[in-house]
């Protein structure tokens, strides 16, 4: 993927299976959102291809929505913008994400965390086979973040849909994630995040405030990134990319 004269994404190869949670992590400017947009079909890649199951229904939760104050709109009408749905489905989905009480509120008056749940509800109303979530826990406090991730895991179990989500550079991902992809213009490494890190620095940072059901995904790189996100080689043969991909695959 090339934008202007900048190569944003290069040699990314990934897949999401039904019922699988794949989490995309990486620093700012790593191309996470661009990758999502390519996968969603919002931008066409300059090279490579995206294969989808024919007729795949996608539920998309964009990164934080700000509805202008000039547009008067209630949560109910906002949810209705995604299409027409049977009433019982609306009630069920609202109960699942826990925001039934907000239905008649103006969209502008709900909090950041509530808005995330409403966006999730709008995606779920489509009964998607694939849920695409762009930073679902953005603007939510740490305890709330745990709830959001647990909710996503529950929804995956219930709907059996595949989940692809982006999480910010904070390497805080759900223990239940089946696969983590660390992206920085290329795929740095992929792995299963099933071990809670013992790293004292992480424990000091998050300590006991960590809700159950979350794990920290630590991994070692065989290269470093400089401040601009460019790959700086060390300990490896010269050349771009990930030499010896096996060597830095997560050891969990």
């Amino acid at each position, binding site marked *: 993927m090339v934008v202007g004269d900048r190569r944003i994404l290069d040699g990314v190869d990934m897949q999401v299976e039904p019922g699988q949670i794949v989490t995309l992590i990486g620093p700012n400017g790593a191309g996470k959102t661009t990758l999502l947009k390519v996968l969603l079909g919002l931008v066409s890649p300059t090279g490579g291809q995206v294969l989808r199951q024919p007729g795949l229904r996608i539920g998309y939760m964009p990164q934080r929505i700000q509805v*202008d104050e000039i*547009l*008067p*709109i*209630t949560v109910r009408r906002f949810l209705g913008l995604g299409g027409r749905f049977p009433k019982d489905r609306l009630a069920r989905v609202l109960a699942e994400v826990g925001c039934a009480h907000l239905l*008649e509120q103006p969209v502008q008056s709900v909090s950041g965390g509530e808005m995330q749940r409403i966006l999730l509800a709008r995606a779920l109303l489509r009964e998607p086979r694939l849920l695409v979530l762009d930073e679902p826990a953005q603007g939510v406090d740490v305890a709330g973040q745990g709830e959001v991730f647990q909710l996503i895991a529950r929804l995956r179990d219930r709907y059996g849909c595949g989940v692809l989500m982006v999480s910010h550079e904070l390497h805080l991902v759900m223990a239940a994630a089946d696969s983590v992809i660390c992206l920085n213009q290329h795929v740095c490494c992929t792995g299963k995040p099933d071990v809670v890190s013992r790293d004292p620095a992480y424990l000091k940072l998050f300590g006991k405030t960590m809700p159950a059901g979350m794990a920290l995904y630590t991994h070692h790189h065989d290269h470093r990134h400089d401040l601009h996100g460019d790959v700086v080689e060390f300990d490896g043969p010269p050349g771009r990319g990930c030499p010896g991909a096996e060597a830095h695959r997560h050891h969990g």
Partner: protein
Amino acid sequence: MDDFIVRALLGGMAVALVAGPLGSFVVWRRMAYFGDTLAHSALLGVALGFLIGLNVNLTVVILCVTLALVLMLLQRQRRLATDTLLGILAHSSLSLGLVAVAFLEGVRVDLMAYLFGDILAVSNEDLTWIFIGGVVALGMLMALWRPLLAITVHEDLARVEGVRVSLVSMGFMLLMALVIAVAMKVVGILLITSLMIIPAAAARRLSSTPEQMALFAALIGCLAVAGGLWGSLTWDTPAGPSIVVAAALLFAVIFSLPGAALLRRLRTPS
């Protein structure tokens, strides 16, 4: 009441009924300046109509749509910001229109009537055009309502949900061109956007859903037309600008009402 006043009222209110709901979208989509640019280019459409002997309403619609498409193409480049582009297009097309009108031989074009409207001279034929155009525009707007609202709130989300974004936004531009052609007679090309924006902005204070705002905008627009005409007849002021002044007064009153927020809260079912 005299015939010409009845015709003026009917024509003006018909325009206001369409301009209110459409203007709500103009306000929501932050396209006020865009509407202004389209309106400015309408004079070139008028000159073109006289030049090639086609119906003026038709050439205005065609020219506005063409300009909208040109603008969409120009927006793809990144060097100039949209407001700069709009400024260039608005004023150069208006000037081009004025120059073109000057070149027209044998036809005396009442420039003031096109620039500021001539609602008191609305003929039965004009009324027919206004009604047909208005009904078509309202029908299109109703058909486009939900997808248009969806892309206004979040374009990418709407696209993933299956809305054909470029088709819908093109439809919206066509609508604006149509309403400009229709409203030109009433308030003139320099004041058209005010009839879209001022009632819609005033209606915001009273509404808690998009549909309410569209409806109130239409009603406030009608009130402004009636009030403006009354003022124009009473004080012998130009009708088009008087309508805009009436709309602005209504806006000011509604926005300074202390109870307006309360009204909205009462209206929201709990």
